[in-house]
């Protein structure tokens, strides 16, 4: 066993109505996923400003995932449709700048999908771990 195993830092933005509840359900059902995932609760995925994502990367996050209700199920009717466009544009741009595309993801997780939440996080952590530390968008001076 390696002693200094690399642990990625994952920021997950979860909408209050579906995905945050899905994460709670994963907890209720004791579906394990790595502790590297830290969840920030937002009312809707459309509250996630691209600036938050860039900020997370700048401060040392290795991956950022945004979870919202499935398209059509948004508690606010249309929020996740905007998220879908905004993030498609942003992710494509980050890729254009040479940032590894596996570091960003949008996933639709309903309140009933605790298992999907855990599986998504396991998969995302695995993919980001494989990439290693995020050097490209991280501001080294802000890291301790």
């Amino acid at each position: 066993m390696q002693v200094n195993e690399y642990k990625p830092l994952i920021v997950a933005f979860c909408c209050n109505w579906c995905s945050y509840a899905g994460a709670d359900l994963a907890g209720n059902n004791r579906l394990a996923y790595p502790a590297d995932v830290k969840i920030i609760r937002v009312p809707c995925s459309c509250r996630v400003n691209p600036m938050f994502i860039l900020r997370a990367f700048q401060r040392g996050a290795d991956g950022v995932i945004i979870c919202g209700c499935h398209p059509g199920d948004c508690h606010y009717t249309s929020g996740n449709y905007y998220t879908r466009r905004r993030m498609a544009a942003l992710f494509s741009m980050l890729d254009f700048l040479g940032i590894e595309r596996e570091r960003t993801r949008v996933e639709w997780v309903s309140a009933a999908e605790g298992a999907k939440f855990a599986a998504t996080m396991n998969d995302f952590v695995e993919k980001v771990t494989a990439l290693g530390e995020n050097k490209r968008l991280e501001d080294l001076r802000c890291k301790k």
Partner: protein
Amino acid sequence: MQRVGVFVCWCGSNIAGTVDVKAVAEALKSEPGVVFSTDYQYMCSQAGQDMIKNAVKEHNLTGIVVCSCSPRMHEATFRKTAAAAGLNPYMVEIANIREQCSWVHKDMLSGTEKAIILGKAAVAKVNLNAPLTPGESPVTKRALVIGGGIAGIQTALDIADAGFPVDIVEKKPTIGGKMAQLDKTFPTLDCAACILTPKMVDVAQNDKIRIFSYSEVTDVQGFVGNFDVTIKKNARYVKEDICTGCGACVDKCPMKRIPNEFNLGMDNRPAIYIPFAQAVPKVATIDPNACNMLKNGKCGLCAKVCTAGAIDYTQKDEYIEEKYGAIVVATGFNPISMDKFDEFAYSQSKDVITSLEFERLTNAAGPSAGKLLRPSDGEHPHTIVFVQCVGSRCESCAEKGKEYCSKICCMYTAKHAMLTRDKYPDTEVYVFYIDVRTPGKNFDEFYRRAVEEYGVKYVKGMVGKITPEGKKLKVQASDLLANKQLHIDADLVVLAAAIEPDKSARPLATMLTASMDTNDFFTEAHPKLRPVESPTAGVFLSGACQGPKDIPETVSQAGAAASKVIGLLAKDKLTGNPCVAGSNELICNGCSSCANVCPYGAISYEDKEFRMPDRTTKVRRIAVVNPAVCQGCGACTVTCPSGAMDLKGFANLQIMAEVDAICK
């Protein structure tokens, strides 16, 4: 600078088992703004809450961080605690270290580490919290019930009983739903019509209740307390207020060979019809796809015989707009289609029927006037095979079946088997089961009576194959307990088809922005604690639209939903969510981007005069948010280029502070 108190909950061993709560409390002591930090077994208990209240007084706290279970669980609790201690309730932040930490991580070290980080994020956020006061909105004191089955009927009656007006929207020409089609009800065997039709009459006679039959909801706008609903009244070509329901038109109609939906196509009805004798409203309806007069203008017989003059071939669909304070969904269920279950020969033989068809066959008002006769030749069946779990608990056949247990089939099959043996002791009755599930009052006793007193033969094992051969149905099954293969020559096979939500539920859910699970059952706000509410405020769930249910359960849920509606309508004003958007007029560009993305139309614009630094004045267009209409999604905050638009409670700086705390 805030004075923050941190309270780490053990939740017994739920949190303390995987998170070193003392270490968390200790680590958070040195966070900016934190002046007090402690831990306790159960923060949500009276003692825990008192601890928080005392600490607020003792340490002059201005903000509270509770590291505990999900905010979806106890945020409201701790907000009340804060309010009781004289703090603004929105000065509380919860770090979710149970559902999203201790319960999903096994290792104490990483669990504790994560709990500390989540705690830090909550502290960072609460440092930027500001006291919030919720706005108020009025309540329209009228309820809408969508679906006129027993669930909708009971809900409407209970709401009307409390003195509030209720509208029922039913897409069929009559209310009554599935229960009206049933013969007897388990486990007491009272006749369904005898207990249902009086309730239908009550609905018709209640002056607080309006019935929109043959109608559907086409649009829902607004929010809790203030829904604007559009109801489409389909043209039935009969003036509802004039028709006396005498039935003369039904007798005279020459188009008599239309499959009768009410009897599941086992007999026919005319083009103008009243679904059944006790229909409410008892008004005829013309089927536009069958009526000669409507199709090609030839006939008009019904208009001639109608002495009341109720027939109106020119009637058009009518749209009604109405305001409601609360909406109850009671869209019910349907048996799934058996067409794809080739092994059971449903599409090959008329004598393979579903349980609902069996109900009609045994019903005195049914196609055979209550005599149990084979649909193919009208002969009395001597060997009847019942197959349970057809399409239920079916994981590998998503394209034709359902993964869940349909819950009601065990009991109605026992009922059918028992009644058959009771009425026709010369018949041999087999029930093939995987499990017999009878959790309900007097349910298991009922099932045992079927076996012990009525001699129904229960066989453990699913039927593998049914082959029609001459007048017989060859049933091949395996008796798993006796470990032998059975070959039965049956006269009639009854399939206990799985049930699924009505197809109209999905588009309705989209209109209501109410969430659904993968099976299209409506999701409840909390599976245990808020089982009759949708997560969408003001939308309530009644009956099988939320999950498979029998009648007693449906009626109790219907009553529960009604009481929730009554509780809502009894209020004159609703306190809104204070976490609404607001625009900083000093830096607003007036560019309209925010109004473009607002799903509620909560943003308007006005020209405002500003004094410039050089003492001149300038008129600028600025955005104004209506806090009563804003629901706080935050779509506008992201689209705003200058960052003028922000969301209270989830402000840009607050979320970024959380990001920073996590990434530090």
